[in-house]
């Protein structure tokens, strides 16, 4: 078995564009769910409209890339309004139902035959991002040391992705440390109290939903650029749940939680994938017990187990301030 290869695979995944995509989606979700308490199960829908908004305007209408990005953002903005305006006056659960349903409807709509003239149907569209990779300052070579290396194109998209993550994190940090952030954290606690103190809670919730949705739209665009493809079935409900998994692993309501979570998520996923494959091909695990095609689902199960362990031992994620022990001592101090 080649453990260096396992490590290389894991590190490459953890710093790669995929992790940046998940981090972006989870930073947005953190603003919505972690701070404002909005149950948005439709991050995949925001990623879909972002990715398709950019891609379709570039490929179908010959728009320049920057315009495509703006259209992707506009689509995310409109989706947030569409979801938020009718549901945010209602109880929290309605938003959860509306978001998960809308994201699925969008996916089914985009893969339908009727929409194919615009959306390219089930197979989506590939190799449209030359405009983006033309800007690549790194050229075609390979960067890194030995097996810990990325191609110039991969490095370029990863860099852009992580810079966007940094921007989203900085924006979140500025906002949540401001009085605006105090209001949305208070809304998560008890919305009626906040209304009684003269704040238009509806407007605040809508702002949080829009901001988080825009971040997810950007994530969708990075994903489309990184894979040079948009296909409708990339944006299944699973993607929304992964965003939640990332957030829960890293730390809900912590500024850097989603970043830590995304790195951890991909580290776990890639390491277990690579390790299992190596073990099977080298005969450590026999073929009859497990074949390489089983690895995909099993690695997800492992992430699930990690999530359960986190819930049990560190409910607020890796960056949580509140370990069960700390909470207990805090209670004891107050009692004393």
């Amino acid at each position, binding site marked *: 078995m080649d453990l260096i290869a396992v490590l290389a695979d894991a590190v490459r995944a953890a710093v790669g564009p995929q992790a940046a995509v998940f981090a972006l989606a989870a930073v947005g979700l953190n603003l919505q769910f972690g701070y404002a308490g909005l149950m948005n199960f439709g991050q995949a829908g925001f990623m879909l409209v972002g990715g398709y908004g950019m891609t379709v305007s570039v490929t179908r209408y010959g728009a320049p890339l920057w315009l495509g990005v703006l259209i992707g953002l506009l689509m995310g903005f409109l989706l947030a309004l569409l979801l938020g305006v009718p549901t945010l006056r209602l109880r929290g659960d309605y938003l959860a139902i509306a978001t998960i349903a809308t994201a699925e409807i969008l996916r089914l709509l985009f893969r339908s035959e009727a929409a194919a003239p615009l959306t390219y149907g089930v197979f989506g569209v590939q190799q449209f991002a030359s405009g983006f990779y033309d800007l690549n300052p790194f050229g075609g070579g390979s960067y890194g040391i030995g097996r810990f290396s990325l191609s110039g194109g991969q490095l370029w998209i990863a860099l852009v992705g992580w810079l966007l993550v940094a921007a989203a994190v900085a924006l979140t940090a500025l906002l949540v440390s401001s009085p605006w952030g105090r209001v949305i954290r208070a809304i998560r*606690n008890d919305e009626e*109290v906040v209304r009684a*103190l003269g704040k*238009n809670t509806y407007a605040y919730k809508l702002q949080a939903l829009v901001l988080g949705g825009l971040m997810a739209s950007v994530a969708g665009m990075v994903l489309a650029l990184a894979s040079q493809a948009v296909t409708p079935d990339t944006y299944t409900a699973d993607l929304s749940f992964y965003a939640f998994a990332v957030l829960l692993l890293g730390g809900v309501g912590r500024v850097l939680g989603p970043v830590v979570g995304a790195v951890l998520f991909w580290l776990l996923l890639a390491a277990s994938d690579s390790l299992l494959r190596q073990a099977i091909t080298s005969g450590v695990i026999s073929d009859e017990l497990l074949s390489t095609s089983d690895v995909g689902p099993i690695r997800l199960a492992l992430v699930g187990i990690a999530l359960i362990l986190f819930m049990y031992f560190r409910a607020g994620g890796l960056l949580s301030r509140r370990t069960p022990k700390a909470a207990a001592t805090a209670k004891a101090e107050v009692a004393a």
Partner: protein
Amino acid sequence: MTSSPSGHETTQSILSAQGVQRRFGGLTAVDVDDFVVRGGTITALIGPNGAGKSTFFNVLTGFDRADAGAWQLEGREVTGLPAYRLARQGMVRTFQLTRSLADLTLEENVLLAAPGQRGEGIGGALFGRRSWRRQEADNTERAQELLARFGLEQMAGQPAGVLSGGQRKLLEMARALMSEPRLLLLDEPMAGVNPRLVETLLDHIRQVRAEGTTILFVEHDMDVVADISDDVVCMAFGKVLATGTPAEVMRDPEVIDAYLGSDEAGDDDSARLAGKGRQP
């Protein structure tokens, strides 16, 4: 039947309401023809359970909608305004079941109520950092004073979730005062509070009145009402039965009937109403 507000015409009304109705299906929960709170007073809204006090209270504060009627705050028409706008106009309420914002510290709880904080807008938060920081510094000073006034200054940095029930009542009042209300509406402030804390709360309420804030509170404990209020309004079956000084209202035969006739009021309340002394 409704009696008109009795002869306190000398002071201006801060809150007045006419013909306010709230129906749930066939049931008319609130049907108040005429309701006035005089400025600078402590006014108690009493009545047996199910009288519609809380519903009326919720309608006035924008937490429930009215099916009919109009109400004015300091002469301004405020009928049907959403809760947050009523609060900005100076009409601030608390809740029967105290609601502290458990994850926020005590200081944050109070700061949240500060009016006109520019950093609460997204633009102001991002681009007016210097401006809101200055406001925040002033507000923090006031928040500390308020917390000290309610004996909570030691815990200013703790999350409100660690407070006891009584401390939460105090915090809620400090928070409401931070918003500089003209009219403070307290929904059963003494409910579930131990007798010693009731005294503390009453002292605080008197002090708030002394500073020029009018108080309207819902209560069904007669002792409390008689001790502290200037005016009493008694409701039953959604209507106003009597209005006047505590002594007047408690002598009113209809009020006594309403309390005696209700399953919820214990013999205690009835006895006290009948004039057998106000002290426990």
